[in-house]
């Protein structure tokens, strides 16, 4: 049986020689379900801030990049399982993740926020007002961790994708949702998110959120990490970063 599996794997799996070709070949893992950072537009193209940043970094590193989409809750295991070489998907550099993967310098940092239906009776996002409500978050995110720590009396539901908590917030199955402030404000300002509004923008917690969003690579790929760091510094310096930022947002998402 084991032999059969290996034979089948060899026959069907993509076999990629590690030997470098002329241009560095990189597979970038992203989620493709996290607008406005990385998502599919209606024509089926992968777009968003993360994607533009990734393309700019690849240009800077003279690398040929292909994108692989992967569900969020399996994205680190997939990196470890070598389904791609780096994660560029708005991943917060938390201490827990840092134990398993290696992070580059940050490429942006925005605070979390809470969204509620427009007719919600919630006055604010204090732990007292949030007690006894049902709060939705994407699983394996800093936002879920934040909710656990700061809203201990709130029932937390965890979803595989933001799409799922949005559907449930719309139907009223959950009373509020927590996610990145940019993600939620883009959503409530679109036709899709007309049901809902931002209740409050929260403060980053340094222990939970770490220094912001970075690019994750496998721990042994230190060379790749250094290349990314050099490239991030370069696009910050040469104005490409600002160009991409202004294309997507009217605020500066890099933070201080």
């Amino acid at each position, binding site marked *: 049986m084991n032999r059969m599996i290996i034979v089948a794997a060899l026959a069907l799996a993509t076999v990629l020689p590690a030997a470098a070709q002329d241009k560095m070949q990189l597979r970038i893992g992203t989620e493709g379900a996290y607008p406005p950072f990385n998502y599919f537009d209606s*024509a089926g193209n992968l777009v968003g801030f993360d994607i533009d940043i990734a393309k700019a970094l690849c240009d800077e590193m003279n690398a040929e990049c292909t994108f692989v989409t992967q569900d969020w809750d399996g994205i680190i*295991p997939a990196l470890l399982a070598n389904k791609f070489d780096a994660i560029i998907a708005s991943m917060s550099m938390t201490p827990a993740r840092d134990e398993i993967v290696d992070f580059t310098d940050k490429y942006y940092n925005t605070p979390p926020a809470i969204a509620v239906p427009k007719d919600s009776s919630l006055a604010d996002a204090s732990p007292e007002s949030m007690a006894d409500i049902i709060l939705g978050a994407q699983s394996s995110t800093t936002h879920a961790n934040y909710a656990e720590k700061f809203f201990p009396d709130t029932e937390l539901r965890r979803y595989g994708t933001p799409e799922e908590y949005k559907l449930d917030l719309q139907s009223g199955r959950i009373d509020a949702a927590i996610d990145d402030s940019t993600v939620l404000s883009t959503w409530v300002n679109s036709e899709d998110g007309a049901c809902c509004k931002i209740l409050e923008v929260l403060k980053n917690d340094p222990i939970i959120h770490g220094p912001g969003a970075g690019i994750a690579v496998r721990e042994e790929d230190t060379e790749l990490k250094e290349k990314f760091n050099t490239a991030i510094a370069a696009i910050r310096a040469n104005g490409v970063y600002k160009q991409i930022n202004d294309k997507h947002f009217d605020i500066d998402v890099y933070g201080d």
Partner: protein
Amino acid sequence: MDDSLLGLLRFGPDGWGDELLAGLRITLLLALTTAPVGLVLGFCLALMRRSDNARLRVPATIFTTIFKGLPELITLFIVYYGLSMAIRWVLSFVTSVHIEISAFLAGVIALGAVSASFASEVFMGALNGINRGQVEAAEALGLGRWPILRKILIPQVMRLALPGLSNLWLVLLKDTALVSVIALPDLLRRTFIAVGSTKEPFFFFTVAIVIYFIISLVSMAILALLEARFSRGYAR
């Protein structure tokens, strides 16, 4: 433009018809790739489980017990994440070649193992249904093991096993939907994408269910023809 719900099923950039069709293609491709794996492996497992040799019988029995008992979804997670990591770890000692287990391949391996386990059960039943005297008679005529298997056992086993195997095919078709959870863009996952973008879950999940129902009905019609064909010699 047609703004009704059915208009959402248009083909082209503003409708979801072509996306759903592409998903259906992957669903069928996955089922059609997995079925032969389950069939061949299931037959081997059945022979092993009937063997007098404990070194064949015991591992085959353990294998089928595990994959018949585990939820398909957990098998899928273990193959998709675990097997990739295991292969990477093993290969890291011998070579720098990367082998990646795609969601599709994970689906073939996991669902193949599950359907092989159930198929072995069906084949065991069919093998039991064949009179032992037939094998003895063939041996008396001097036929070797391989000709006996190919000319006497397999044709009869297929006839006896076909109803059970038909059912396994229908189970397999339905189980492919689980692979959507590990990001294979099959029919169900594409439906979910359409739901996310249109906010019409009731309509799109109904469409998906109707499509699955139609494939099941068509499969049953084809399998009924096959069964009639295989039992031709037995019609009264």
